[in-house]
């Protein structure tokens, strides 16, 4: 697993209080990991801080799965 993926996974696990094994590439934050819409906003805020990047609102809307997040952050950072 890439360094980015590991750091993203740590944030997701901590924020959503889910087991690490459930955080797979296709895992949807809302449908599979129990996030509500406000959780997804907070996750994006946490990603921004962890990686020192800015994630615009329209891009944030497209980050729905763990894989989406890793892909976006890998390309942005």
């Amino acid at each position, binding site marked *: 697993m890439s360094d980015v993926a590991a750091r993203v996974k740590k944030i997701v696990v901590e924020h959503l209080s889910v087991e690490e094994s459930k955080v797979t590439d296709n895992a949807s934050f809302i449908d599979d990991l129990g996030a509500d819409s*406000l959780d997804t*906003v*907070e996750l994006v*805020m946490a990603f921004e801080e962890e990686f020192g990047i800015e994630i615009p609102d329209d891009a944030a809307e497209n980050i729905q799965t763990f894989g989406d997040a890793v892909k976006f952050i890998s390309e942005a950072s």
Partner: protein
Amino acid sequence: MFDLTGKSALVTGASGGIGGEIARTLHAAGATVGLSGTRTEPLEALAAELGERVYVLPCNLSDLPAVDALPKEAVAAMGAVDILVNNAGITRDNLFMRMSDDEWQSVIDVNLTATFKLCKGVLRGMMKARWGRIVNISSVVGATGNPGQGNYAASKAGMIGMSKSLAYEVASRGITVNAVAPGFITTAMTDKLTEDQKSAILAQVPTGRMGTPEEISAAVLYLSSQEAAYVTGTTLHVNGGMAML
């Protein structure tokens, strides 16, 4: 009770009678206060009066890019914004049939759009802190309407609907969003009314007198406090019984 030690509060319209009193009251309860307003001189005078734990943050709320910058400036100065009081407001009264688009839009921009932007700007820090208080100063006319104030009443009613919607969204994060709706309060603005105008107004007020800025700031202090953690999405009417809502 109502100890705000360690909290930082941003108050808009702090150069006015009600806003200045809100800043004094929150400061007296221990908060660090950021005084915002268009006119720097009265802000500096109030800051000098309060002494410590006070910052002057001038901002013209009709300048929307400046509104976006204000929360960041407040955080840079105070370290955080734990309490936001959207008190600033303008009036541009006219009969509805004579009201220009500009009279409508300028009031909506300052009273409602700037409030939206300031709320949005402080939420990130409040969400992380899992604590926040937003108090939006509405008006009795937002609930009752008032001839000549279609724009102002719309903006003040809009603040209430906005506050309730936001209150739903952020309640689980320890953030409360409430409104205070003053009735007729003694300020420089109401001092300009003639005796006839005043007595006509007071005939509608069961307590038979105008309210004081201190009576508004006390309501704001309560809604800003830890003790009010279970109060959100409400409108606290402080109007001497003029409208019992």
